[in-house]
């Protein structure tokens, strides 16, 4: 496979995973903003998914519609869903002969959907949840079509590598931002605080089934970092990343394979042999940043070893 093609597939996939993350986050936070007017703030969402500093974010924090406009359809915001989807589609466009026609058409439709002016208007005037649902469904179509139509070759491996690397980093970020506001006061067990966070990563129901004793910060950490059955957990993402990476083993690039295999293996052991208590002992923020740093290094290594074509 051409290095350029691998690169484009990887980024196409990362961008779409990000799109899914952002949209879910927006949907749940919007719902939450309708629930408690007093306390609700968009600060954490903005910190996780934009480059705005606190001062720049200030005019947004209590304006749901403004946040939605900025994060979904704003052309100037390079991290708006519109721009992320456009980049995903441009990547797909340049590798149309490596993805199935259905997959290309799905992304092309996604692109046209999000540029639809009616949608932009709806986001400002109508029920934003129905609009966000339309977009989330387009993303789900992408996942389904990838699963059903893409051949299980190298390209598929790079798509999944991008997807799980992005997902792992996202979960780490979300957790880190959520906890940073508590100033290490983990005694807080306010139901809505955790409920909406878990909902936004589709982990609420699992939490209820796993932990019967109400909300506890430690349990939240355990689920989001260490539960191998939770598809958005860090450990799940890292395991999947490794699984798809192993499919590159038979490729010609032995040295690159060994190097990155070592890096992913190290992260995997680190997460696998952590407990909530060991994480707390090290300090949650330090732990999360370290894992994130290492995942980013894996991304850089892919750039160097597999995608370098200039």
């Amino acid at each position: 496979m051409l290095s350029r093609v691998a690169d484009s597939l990887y980024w196409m996939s990362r961008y779409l995973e990000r799109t899914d993350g952002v949209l879910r986050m927006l949907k749940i936070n919007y719902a939450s903003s309708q629930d408690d007017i007093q306390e609700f703030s968009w600060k954490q969402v903005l910190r996780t998914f934009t480059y705005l500093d606190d001062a720049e974010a200030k005019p947004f924090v209590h304006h749901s519609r403004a946040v939605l406009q900025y994060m979904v359809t704003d052309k100037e915001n390079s991290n708006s869903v519109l721009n992320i989807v456009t980049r995903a589609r441009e990547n797909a466009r340049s590798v149309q002969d490596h993805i199935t026609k259905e997959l290309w058409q799905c992304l092309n439709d996604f692109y046209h959907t999000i540029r639809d002016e009616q949608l932009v208007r709806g986001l400002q005037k109508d029920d934003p949840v129905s609009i966000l649902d339309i977009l989330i469904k387009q993303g789900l179509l992408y996942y389904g079509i990838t699963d059903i139509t893409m051949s299980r070759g190298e390209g598929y491996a790079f798509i999944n590598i991008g997807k799980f690397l992005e997902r792992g980093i996202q979960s780490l970020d979300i957790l880190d931002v959520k906890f940073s506001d508590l100033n290490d006061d983990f005694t807080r067990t306010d139901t809505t605080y955790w409920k909406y966070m878990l909902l936004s990563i589709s982990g609420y129901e699992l939490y209820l089934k796993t932990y019967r004793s109400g909300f506890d910060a430690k349990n939240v950490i355990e689920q989001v970092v260490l539960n191998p059955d939770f598809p958005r957990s860090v450990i799940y993402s890292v395991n999947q990343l490794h699984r798809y990476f192993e499919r590159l083993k038979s490729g010609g690039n032995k040295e690159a394979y060994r190097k990155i295999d070592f890096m992913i293996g190290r992260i995997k052991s680190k997460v696998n042999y952590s407990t909530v208590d060991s994480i707390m002992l090290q300090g949650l923020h330090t732990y999360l940043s370290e894992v994130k740093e290492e995942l980013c290094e894996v991304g850089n290594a892919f750039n160097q070893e597999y995608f370098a074509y200039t």
Partner: protein
Amino acid sequence: MLFFIFNVLNDFRLPFICFPAQAATKTIFTMQTSDLLNGYYVDNKTWDEMCTEQSVRQQYQGVVDFMQQMSIEELNKKEELAKRLFMSQGITFTVYSSGEGIEKIFPFDIIPRIITAAEWKYIEEGIRQRLKALNLFLKDVYNNQFILKDGIVPNEMVYSCPHYLREMHGFPVPHDIYVHIAGIDLIRDQDGTFYILEDNLRTPSGVSYMLENREITKRIFPDLLPKNNVRTVTEYPTILHRNLVSLSPRQTANPTIVLLTPGIYNSAYFEHTTLARLMGVELVEGRDLVVDNHRVYMKTTAGLQQVDVIYRRVDDEFLDPLVFNADSMLGVAGIMSAYRKGNVAIVNATGNGVADDKAIYTYVPAMIRYYLNEEPILKNVPTYQLGNTEEREYVFANMNKMVIKKTNESGGYGMLMGHTAGEEEIFRYQVEIAKNPRQYIAQPIISLSSAPCYMGGRLKPRRVDLRPYALCGPDCIEIVPGGLTRVALREGSLVVNSSQGGGSKDTWVLAG
């Protein structure tokens, strides 16, 4: 500010102009059962593909009957569906305005253009003959130059052509084929005679529209194609792929074939991806390739992989910065040396521009007689060489009946339409021509045929041309039964170019 970053099909040449209907006699059809054909009139100076003066031609009867059974609402829905299909498949080009790209589709008219079996047989034979001669000419002109020595084509015509490449001299190309893919433009004058307007022998585009338009017709008019006995065009990628495989310099069962594209910002990018997908070959950009020791490799995740055949959609001058335009980012440094060593095949061959040059065009009938000892089947549009004093004087005396074209330009640039140009403009051209006559040719303005287009509930005649695609393989020349019909959608418009409001139609060739 609004500007086109590119034309949809950028290597399309501008066709020609036709007479404005001067005091045309109109034939109005009124005998039809629905309103569809009401007011379909054609002036008697134009050949209409659908109608004679009295009736609908037999080949169109099936389609006309079918259309008349449908309501305007249904037809409008079909048109809407066609648009949506193009959009969702990304068969679009981008217009940039205030920093933002807007996707547009290349207009598609839902009524097919129909060619009978007899007409097709004639076209097919004519093109086959012409390509045979053109390939021989290219081989000759880059090797022994018999045709120049025998004085059939003047030396200066060849050496003054900017597309003539010294780099092509004296090395054998595989199977002696220079033109592997040709898109030959045909037009019909008022009595229906076909003329060759241009031979496109470099990187002709538009074939994806031939394929996609057919797919759209299948969707919008279920069952209509088999009922009308329309021949399929789907063989095209298979034949092309088979021909490309046959060119591989390495004797291997599975040679590496790539399609070299200038990249996603090229107007024909959609076409490049479609062809790569349909043939199952790798779509590469210049930056994916590297030349080492006169061999071409592509950079893959598993290291370098040798490339055997390159179907390139990058023009000659951008192909190799070491040989041609040094600023080119689209090409591959060293590719020409690999080509000359015979380590890689390039399709079409470089240097073909010398054979589809507008001034050389005049000599194609002579080439056919010289190389094949046959009379040309398809006619040339009469063309005046402005280097020839007599011809120049004749043209200058009849400027209002002429089209003046620059020989080395395309896409409608550097053209003068005599019947509409002002005196001052004509004078300016005459001065320019006198300075450098080799750069210009003149052709009498020829009418082109009209075909029905669906416009707001009615059929209206609009001017069309035809570009069939011919594939030259080691054993034979094959012309897929179909082609691209371009149509001037604006009423009274004389130009079928996509940049001038032109669209396209599905082109049907009927089986016997």
